[in-house]
């Protein structure tokens, strides 16, 4: 082992971004083509409207302002449930990962909650708490908390005892320890829980809105389902998929990348 700085590892030449995106774009275009073909063959816009028709509906929804209001309501519920689930599930998982006693006592409840159908939790919350926002957000969070807890429990078990020793010898304060020693070790698990979590949560939020709210994308889906308006159902679904993809692309991924900066070998 020499005392000099290790030489920079040869980095493979990076392909331009568009080249990496090409397969995804082409496969999306193929699916769109298949949809257009099937719609043309079926020739029944009430059953399977063409992509162009759906796009037109989407445009009209955007122009009337309806799109922004209901998407915003749903998004607000997604974010509220997401925050509750990440904080509560994260704290619970970390506690269970660090304390074997806590794990033994809480694990059975966690397993039950993990296997309880989302619909049961939603229905029970609406019955016990009432048809209100608290019940809606709580029922979504309850569906996600055990998933976050399990992921963070595994990460909590794998925390480095050496770094724990270091922090104790130097007398680091609990908050500094959490921020500089513990959380960075948990970051990969938190990122995984966040990305899988947001995907699961928005689907459950739509069910919650479908069953008991009077606004939001789920409520609109309920309305158009009653009228068998497939074009508008698809328009709403498409709009929200785009919103969630943007959140992943513009918020979650950049955050994950910046949290991983220290992994680079050479400056």
């Amino acid at each position, binding site marked *: *082992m020499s*005392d000099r700085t290790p030489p920079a590892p040869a980095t493979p030449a990076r392909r331009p971004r568009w080249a990496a995106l090409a397969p995804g774009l082409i496969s999306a275009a193929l699916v769109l083509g298949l949809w257009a073909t099937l719609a043309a063959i079926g020739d029944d816009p009430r059953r399977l409207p063409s992509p162009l028709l759906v796009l037109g509906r989407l445009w009209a929804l955007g122009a009337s302002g309806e799109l922004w209001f209901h998407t915003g309501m749903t998004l607000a519920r997604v974010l509220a449930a997401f925050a509750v689930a990440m904080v509560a599930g994260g704290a619970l998982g970390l506690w269970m990962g660090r304390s074997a006693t806590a794990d033994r006592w809480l694990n059975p409840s966690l397993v039950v909650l993990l296997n309880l159908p989302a619909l049961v939790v939603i229905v029970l919350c609406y019955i016990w708490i009432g048809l209100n926002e608290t019940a809606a957000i709580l029922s979504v969070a309850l569906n996600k908390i055990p998933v976050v807890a399990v992921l963070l429990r595994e990460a909590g078990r794998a925390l480095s005892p*050496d770094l724990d*020793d270091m*922090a*104790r*010898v130097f007398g680091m304060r609990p908050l500094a320890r959490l921020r*500089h020693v513990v959380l960075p070790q948990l970051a990969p698990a938190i990122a995984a829980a966040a990305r899988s979590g947001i995907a699961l949560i928005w689907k459950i939020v739509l069910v919650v809105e479908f069953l008991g709210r009077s606004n939001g994308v789920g409520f609109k889906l309920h309305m158009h389902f009653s009228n068998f308006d497939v074009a508008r159902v698809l328009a709403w679904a498409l709009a929200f998929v785009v919103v969630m993809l943007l959140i992943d692309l513009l918020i979650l991924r950049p955050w994950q990348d910046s949290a991983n900066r*220290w992994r*680079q070998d050479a400056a």
Partner: protein
Amino acid sequence: MRLELAGKQFDGRPVLGPITLELAPAQRVALLGPSGAGKTTLMRIIAGLDTRFHGLRQVPERLAMVFQEPNLLPWRTALQNITLPTGTTPDAARALLAQVGLEGRDAAWPRQLSLGQQRRLALARAFAARPQILLMDEPFASLDADTAGRMLDLTARLLDDSGAGLVLVTHDPSEAAFLRAQPLRLRGTPATLDVGEPGALPPHPRDI
């Protein structure tokens, strides 16, 4: 510092017997013995990392430790690895970085440093805590002779400058001699301390 250990067991198996260890300010001792003798166990008790023992432990307020591995925070820069655990100012940390030959590497991530550099960073971190007693657990064990020699030089210089006491765990008596640390041998099961002849300390190489 004073440690009066009545005994230490692991799952009912006694590893350390009665041991009394007393250190005057700036005094240096080395715990010697073959691997498995209980050196690291004794060190962890002194450091306060192992509190399940019978006995009495009195240590000064400011302790610092250099571990077998650098034990750096890989997600914090070299400078933050000194300031965050010790609470020292960035300026003081930069001065220490310069003293251990890492001038200008403030912003480097630990992974960008060689093992020798990481160890010197760990040494700088320990002295940044302005320890009254420095604890070192086999700090030169996994280094090649060249790097180990330079680390020893650096440690000796920083110890002289700071006036800190030293408890060094090692299997190599020559390291203890170089740092002018009184050799104490851990022997037997359960292990007890065998105090070497005082006054038999070799002179510091720089005093010759």
